[in-house]
């Protein structure tokens, strides 16, 4: 990586609960040290609206639940050197994928919330991104380079992976992480 500019980090939030992002923030004061070595170029914590070109590392929380997310994830893959599935939703589908066992799940979840549980104007919204028939983990949509399991992954594991990658090393997750 060129020494004159700090490596670029992006974070992305698909169908997840933000707990994985919170776990990143749970590095507390160590965040300030991390900030010295990277440039945070995109994500829910920063104000950039378009995904930048040539991102070095992209951390992705959440599963893929709608068409817009799937299309965007493919775009992000094109512009990211290293793409990491952050947390169980991204790695396995986890909680959002609980709907996959339901018949015609996209319709069934919408029906319950917006029709059965509405007192006024029961209707399924249509002027919104359409839900996919099933919820997918990242690797079923794009190539994933590294996985950080956990719900959420412990803060230290996220820091470890970033530190290793910044040092040009391959993080070893064995005995480090578990699901849940």
């Amino acid at each position, binding site marked *: 990586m060129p020494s004159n500019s700090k490596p670029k980090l992006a974070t992305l939030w698909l*169908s997840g609960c933000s707990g994985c992002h919170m776990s990143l*923030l749970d590095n507390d004061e160590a965040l*300030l040290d991390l900030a010295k070595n990277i440039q945070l170029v995109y994500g829910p914590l920063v104000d950039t*609206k378009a995904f930048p070109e040539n991102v070095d590392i992209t951390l992705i929380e959440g599963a893929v*639940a709608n068409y817009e997310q799937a299309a965007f994830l493919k775009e992000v893959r094109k512009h990211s050197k290293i793409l990491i599935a952050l947390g169980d939703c991204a790695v396995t589908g986890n909680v959002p994928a609980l709907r996959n066992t339901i018949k015609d799940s996209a319709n069934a979840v919408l029906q319950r919330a917006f029709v059965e549980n509405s007192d006024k104007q029961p209707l399924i919204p249509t002027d*919104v*991104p359409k839900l996919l028939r099933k919820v997918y983990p990242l690797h079923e949509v794009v190539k994933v380079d590294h996985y950080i399991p956990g719900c959420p992954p412990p803060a230290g594991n996220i820091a470890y992976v970033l530190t290793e990658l910044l040092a040009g090393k391959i993080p070893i997750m064995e005995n480090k992480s578990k699901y849940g």
Partner: protein
Amino acid sequence: MNPKVITIHPVTRIEGHAKVSIFLNDDNSVRDARFQVIDFRGFEKFCDGRPFYEMPSITARACGICPVSHLLASAQACDEVVRVNIPYTAELLRRLIHMGQLIQSHALNFFHLSAPDLLLGMDSEPSKRNILGLAAEYPELARKGIRLRKFGQEIIENVAGKRIHSGDWIVPGGVKVPLNREKRDYLKNNLPEALKVTQETLAMWKNYLPKFEEDIENFGNFPSYYMGLVTHSGGLEHYRGTLRVVAPDGSIMADHLNPQKYHEYIGEASEDWSYMKFPYLKKVGYPEGLYRVGALARLNVASHCGTPLADEELKEFKKLGKDGVVTSTFHYHYARLIETLFCLERTKEILEDSEVLSDNIWAKASVSSSEGVGVAEAPRGTLIHHYRVDKNGLITWTNMIIATEHNNLAFNKAVTQVAKKYVKANKLHEGMLNRVEAVVRAFDPCLSCATHAVGNMPLEVQLVNSEGKVVDRIVR
């Protein structure tokens, strides 16, 4: 379709992503604005068939920012299903982690998400307008904010074993693990620093307020109803209690409503263009029954806080409004700081309670009711979980009304108000649009909770005149 639509997408630095569309009139003035939520997960359906005691752990995954509030609302609904009164110490510990939850979430909103606008400036360079940019400019302040949030998370970690999604700790009928002395003492020792940071920040904020006069006047400043839990004496409450609704004129419209019967007074409407529903007060109707919840609403409905420092602050705060009702959405920031102070004082009281280390924490019982409702005041407002179970305790139906959803009508009204004031359609600039987003941030919406939303497209704002020609555009 009207070609004159300005879109802000995604809205950043809120908990979740959303989209704002601004609709223009023929004369380029702002007609209307919409706050749209654009993804959906479906907890109310996919929990069908799960054993009821799994619900705290599953539903906490609605939100990584306020998972503890979900745990508590869920556990209370489960307590109802088993029909027990939980032991005193269990309630004390549940209240304690909730204080941690509120402290961390309020600190996150103030320092990590809003301070970049408030201290660096709404028109400051977008690439620096974030917590790391703040750290570069005001390193001491950023460090303090990070440490305050950390203290909130540490309360949760020390009491429940894990900072985020500590669902194993909470059980229907109480909690599973008592608090030990060492952890209690650790928290006690770290409390003074958190208190000091909060008092300093509050003092700083009060000094800053005159600078924001214009924003206060125009940031979602309108009369509305307010709702929140209160204690039996009408004080600030975050865990149990009863609901109070205050009318726009400051009078108490309804008091000590039984939260179990929420559906008698709160209705939910759907709209075609958002994955977040629109709750309204049934008595007033839709959409006029617009009400606000969260820190500002809680301070508007509460007659007092119940702790000495926060009570002093509340008195001063109430003077900002007519009849004790503060109407500007901008003052959510101030209200959150006062609540943080309250939470720290309460934390201290709980840690000093002689029963806090007791191991009488779990009243065990089996399914004895087919229905349960749990209500808590999450950082962002009233949170309702409602379950029905079969005789084996398997879930047959779920309804959740999330704090952020209650504010949905108010978001739309606030966004429209700010857009009308700041978006001058014949000339766009970035800071102007950021103000529209900032009003959303002031509410501190949590869309992870409300459905969870995302969708990151480049922000391109186009201004199209009545002949369909682009006269101005901004990309960021």
